[in-house]
């Protein structure tokens, strides 16, 4: 029985889709989720780029299907590591996961869909997050949009807003060399949402490079420029400081004209990046063959045909455990990891 069971670590979009695909293939997935409900970080999101689809629509579709399929879900449950020993699909293969207090959950294969951490913007002290009242992150804005309460700390509407790209991405100073890839399009999307709410505001976006890699993203960027009147300035903001009237002054170089630039704004929005999950290291250490990329994300076997495989037989990856990804990419990987896990169980049983 337990050899047909597959443990899915994490109940975000990747984990939920992996479980759904496994269940559809007649296997017995069990989702082990740390939080009190399914959904991962999707729960806190308002709308999704580039279609402006409500995050809740995607969330309820997935959770609804999970309930319908009768997938077993263990909430408030932390995974300590991969379990090794007798009883795996074949000799030496993982045979489940270890939960808190050494309790074992036996399984024939494991899909790691444990996600990412959000970069803590306080580490970029020069931007004044949690120092000045009106410095927010894109995650805060998403929550404010969800509650329909986007405003300055005193409840008034901002007249001038500045987005700062690459906060906690492409930055050696905070040990985050990678590009988190989704923050550019997120900032563009939010700038457009703020434009809808504040038609009179001036909105600026300070970027190093604009990376519009997905279908419809470049079009959204152009729409943000032309129709939403978002002013994009190429240059990294060096610091934010308070002005005498309680606003925030930011400094940057406008690198397209080669001159320093300063301006005061009412609201700063930091486009925070995706950081490797803090638990990756412990998980990788628990099983031979699992390893971390230099970025701290889990390293897949290769980036092409083995992108959902690990270096250990019977352990598969899906979603942002291995790199920053979009919701759609996470769901695609969830399905792919499920298929690979099912193939593994079939061939493993023969050995």
């Amino acid at each position, binding site marked *: 029985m337990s050899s047909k069971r597959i443990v899915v670590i994490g109940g975000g979009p990747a984990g939920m889709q992996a479980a759904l695909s496994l269940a559809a293939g007649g296997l017995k997935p069990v989702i082990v989720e740390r939080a009190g409900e399914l959904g991962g970080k999707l729960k806190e999101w308002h709308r999704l780029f580039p279609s402006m689809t409500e995050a809740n629509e995607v969330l309820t579709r997935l959770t609804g299907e999970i309930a319908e399929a009768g997938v077993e879900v263990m909430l408030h449950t932390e995974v300590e590591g991969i379990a090794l020993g007798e009883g795996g699909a074949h000799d030496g293969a993982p045979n489940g996961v270890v939960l808190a207090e050494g309790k074992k959950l036996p399984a024939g294969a494991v899909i790691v869909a444990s996600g990412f951490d959000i970069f803590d913007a306080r580490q970029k002290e020069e931007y004044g997050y949690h120092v000045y009242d009106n410095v927010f992150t894109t995650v805060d804005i998403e929550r404010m949009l969800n509650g329909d309460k986007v405003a300055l700390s005193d409840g008034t509407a901002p007249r001038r807003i500045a987005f700062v790209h690459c906060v906690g991405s492409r930055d050696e100073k905070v040990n985050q060399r990678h590009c988190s890839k989704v923050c550019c399009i997120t900032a563009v999307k939010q700038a457009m949402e703020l434009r809808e709410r504040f038609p009179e505001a001036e909105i600026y976006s300070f970027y190093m490079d604009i990376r519009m890699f997905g279908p419809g993203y470049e079009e959204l960027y*152009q729409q943000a*420029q032309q129709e939403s009147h978002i002013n994009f300035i190429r240059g990294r903001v060096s610091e934010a400081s308070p002005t005498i009237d309680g606003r925030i002054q930011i400094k940057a170089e406008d690198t397209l004209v080669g001159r320093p*630039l300063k*301006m005061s704004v009412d609201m700063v929005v930091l486009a925070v990046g995706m950081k490797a999950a803090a638990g990756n290291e412990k998980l990788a250490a628990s099983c031979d063959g699992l390893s971390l990329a230099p970025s701290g994300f889990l390293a897949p076997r290769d980036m092409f045909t083995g992108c959902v495989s690990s270096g250990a037989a019977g352990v598969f990856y899906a979603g942002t455990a291995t790199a920053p990804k979009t919701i759609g990419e996470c769901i695609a990987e969830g399905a792919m990891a499920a298929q690979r896990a099912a193939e593994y169980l079939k061939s493993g049983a023969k050995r």
Partner: protein
Amino acid sequence: MGAVNFGYGISAARGMDLDRNDLGPAREIADEVPEFRACIACGGCTATCTAGNLTSFNFRMVHTLVRRGEYAGAYREMNKCMLCGKCRLVCPRGINTRGVVMQIKRKLGDY
């Protein structure tokens, strides 16, 4: 005997202050040529510019400065343009660049 000139002086500030700059004329220009707001400053216009290859004229630099409210000299610079329209042929965002030249000439003559 006059003071010896050691070559020291007070440099003008090079910084752009968007609290002081009047962005009104820039907005007016963009309202006349709406797709101008979609400029990504790729420099295609400058690369192909005949005037820019023979003189110090840099159309991309001038119109980027205009978008920041830095108008000084923009009108004078535009007189280097021969309105040949090659920049419009290469613009990946489909901007009516000649329209931008004409708007700068029309609206920024006083700067």
